[in-house]
Structures are given as C-alpha cells and as structure tokens.
C-alpha cells in the first residue's frame, strides 16, 4: 500500500461543464458489500394495480355507505342558543373528556403539545430503537422503576378522579407484570410474545388504549353537563 499514487482524485469545479465521475478501482480493493437477496415485484404494473384495486374497493364501499346514511345537519347556527352538551368532532372528544378533569391550559394546550412532540421524537430516542424485551436486562432495577411509575400514574389518575383512564392503565400494567415473569423460551406463545416487547411498545399501547377509551367515553357516555350517561338510555 506504500506505492505512490500516479493520479490525483479531485473535484471538478468548472461550472460550465457537467463533471464526469470516474471511479478508480485499484488492485486488492474489494467493492463487495453485504446485501440480502429478496424477491421483488415491479411497481408497474403489479403494485400500482393492487393500489388501484384497494382504492376502488374503498370508493365502492364509501359510495354504498353514502347512499344509505346521511351526513348530520342540524338547524341554522344560533349563537344565542347553546346545545347541551356541545361536543367537538369525535377525534377531539378524547381531549374534551380530559378537559372535564383538568384546566384548559393542561388539557387543551399542554397535553396536545406534549403528544405532538412525543410523536415527533419517537424515532430519535434509543428506547424506541432498542428491540429487546424490557425485562430481559437489569430485571430487578427495571421492575422497581416500573412499580413506582405504574403506582404513580394510578395515584395521579385517582387523585384527579379520572376513573375512565384507570382501566387501560391497569390492563397494560398487568400485561407488563406477566411480561416480567415470562421468558422468550416460555412454552406459552403469549408469554413468549410479551417477554420480548420493548419499553416503546408498552408506552404506545398504553397511549392507544387511553385514546380509544377516552374517545369512546366522550362520544357515547357523556350527556348534558358532561354527566355520565348510558348510550342505550338516550338523553
């Protein structure tokens, strides 16, 4: 490797010409790279055809649904007459449900901002990139942290009377305890699966369950004055 090079590699900076790229492959230099051979299909026509088929199926289903069910339309907007309850669109009812427990600056500003920030930073945090089971390493320490965190969240929810959010928290906590007492070699498929889940999985699952429960409660179980109602009773 001590031979002097008989060429100089440089960058062409003549703006009037397109630079020509030249690759020098000298002796003993290997251009080998590691790749996985995997079967592929051509985008045109195979993938585009499938995409078109999916979209057309969707369109047919939506046209059928639209022929059967009419979009809601109430009376002319009247600023002097407030309906009770006044509800936001369904995808915001989780937040509106939180508004019932916390002041607007928390439920309406802090929580949504933190959620958006949390979603954005997901791929930049190592806890999300680690794919190892949460309790497979440092089991005792991690279990201790888990108990403190789970109890803290439960006490917080109960202190603010957010009883509807307790259910998903308990479900996830129980699943995590099962995971902590499982090994990837367990004969049970479920415990094998749970044992291998990383921390990011548990946080996201908790968020998903809370989102579903809060939205469902806000949509179907809240009546006049945001009081608890049963959807089949009406109000």
């Amino acid at each position, binding site marked *: 490797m001590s031979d002097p090079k008989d060429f100089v590699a440089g960058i062409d900076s003549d703006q009037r010409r397109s630079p020509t790229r030249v690759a020098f492959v000298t002796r003993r230099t290997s251009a080998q790279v590691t790749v996985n051979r995997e*079967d592929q299909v051509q985008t045109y026509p195979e993938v585009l055809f499938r995409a078109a088929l999916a979209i057309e199926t969707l369109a047919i289903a939506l046209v059928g649904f639209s022929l059967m069910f009419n979009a809601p339309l109430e009376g002319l907007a009247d600023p002097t007459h407030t309906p009770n309850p006044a509800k936001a669109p369904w995808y915001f009812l989780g937040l509106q449900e939180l508004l019932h427990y916390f002041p607007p600056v928390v439920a*309406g500003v802090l929580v949504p901002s933190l959620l958006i920030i949390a979603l954005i930073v997901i791929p930049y945090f190592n806890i999300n990139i680690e794919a190892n089971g949460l309790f497979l390493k440092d089991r005792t320490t991690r279990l201790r942290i888990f108990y403190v965190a789970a109890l803290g969240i439960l006490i917080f929810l109960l202190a603010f009377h957010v009883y509807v959010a307790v259910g998903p928290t308990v479900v996830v906590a129980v699943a995590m305890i099962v995971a902590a007492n499982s090994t990837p070699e367990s004969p049970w498929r479920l415990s094998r699966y749970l044992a291998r889940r990383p921390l990011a999985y548990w946080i996201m699952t908790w968020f998903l369950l809370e989102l579903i429960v809060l939205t469902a409660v806000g949509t179907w179980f809240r009546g006049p004055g945001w009081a608890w109602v049963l959807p089949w009773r009406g109000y």
Partner: protein
Amino acid sequence: MAVKTAAMVDKLRASRVWRSVFRSGTGNSTLHRALAIQQSIFLHLFSTKVRKRMVGFSATWYLGTLTFGTFLILVITGILLMLYYHPSVPQAYADMKDLQFVVSSGLFLRNLHRWSAQLMVFFVFAHMFKVFYRGAYRTPREFNWVIGVMLLIITLLLSYTGYLLPWDQLAFWAITVGSNLSSAVPFVGNKIHFLLLGGNQVNANALLRFYVLHCVVLPLAAILFIAVHFWRIRKDGGLYVQQSEPKPQQAKDRTSAATEVK
C-alpha cells in the same frame, strides 16, 4: 377482435404523439416497465421495484394507500361541493339545504365527502399505529415518520376547518368549543384566538377564514407533504420492516458486486 385491439394499442403506443408524451417508450420488457415508473414525474416518486414480501396485505394492510384513496375522493367531491357553496352567513346553511333538496345528487355528494373525511382521520391514525408496531420508523426512516406526524396534524386541521362550513348548530358549537381552547395558551392565547376566528367569537369572518384554510392552504400543504412522504419511501430504501427481516440464507448470497443505485 382481441388481437385487433391489442394490435391497435401497440400501434398507438408506437405513434409519434404517444412517444412525445410518454418518455418510457413501448414494450413490455422489465426495462420498459421500470422506465414507466422512472420516467414519469408523478410515478418516479415510487421505486421501480418493491419487495414482494411488502406487497402482501398483512405487511401494511394497505393503510397508507387507503388513506391516499380517501384523500383523492375528498379532493374530487370537495371541488364539486365548492361549485354550490358560498362561504357567507347565512347563505352557507341555505346551500346545505339546497344540496339536500335541490341539487341533483347533492346530498350524496355531501355524504360522500363527510364520511370519507371521517374515514381519512381514522386511516391516518391506523396507519401511524401500524407503522409503529412494525418498527418501520427506525433509521433511516426517522424523517419520514416526522413528515407523517405533520400529515396527521394537517389531516386533523382539514377535518376541523371543514366541520364549520355547513354553519349549522353542530358546526358552530363544535368550533366554539375547540377555538376556546386556543385562548388557554399562556400570554398570547387571546391573540391566537382572534387570529384564528377573525373576531372574538365564531362569526362570518371565521367562516371565511376556515373556508380559505380548508379549500386552499391546507390541501396544498397536504399535497406537498404527501409527495415528500411518498418520495422518501423510495429514498429511505423502500417499504421495509426490520423486525421481520429474513435471515441471510447462504454465504454466497451475502456478497454482491455492486451497490444499489436509487
């Protein structure tokens, strides 16, 4: 008959006019099919080949495709609805009634737009969770995930601004409840509230602002981000999931003489 049609199609595709429009040329070879993607400004966003494993339903549930499908339906029905809609008070509500009773298929058009909008919000969330659980946000796809979060926010804003346009009780009070939240922002809350509504409460100015946001600003932003979102799939190495990456089968499969050129 079939032979005659095929011959006519071949002749058409070989004609000078066709060749001037489509740069990929005629033929059904692998190269021509690749060129059909690579030489089109719209299709070149996609890669020319996709891993076979990722085309199956279980890999993605086609949630991204279906989200885009709802967006297409919304653009088409939205443009048609704009032909009958005036963003003024109380004409906006009268136009809703006209759509219901006077315009041919007006009710159907509004139904399709409304239900597609609800489904799009659902699909965007479903797509996000599917991508998360498949681990497809990991390096090098971090930034495409961020663009996806932007598209989630744009979708929610599109749906929210559209909610006011019928100018009925449902619309008015939903937007009142929602926009009051912006007043809770520390220090500048009232300013943001005023900027959003063009007044201190939901009124004709708010309707016009939401209309412009809903029909011009947000759709353009959505189209821009969707284009980047699609393009980054190719640039970041195609549809891929690390968790189910197949193990290298044999030693000779592990090496190859060249890198992929994207």
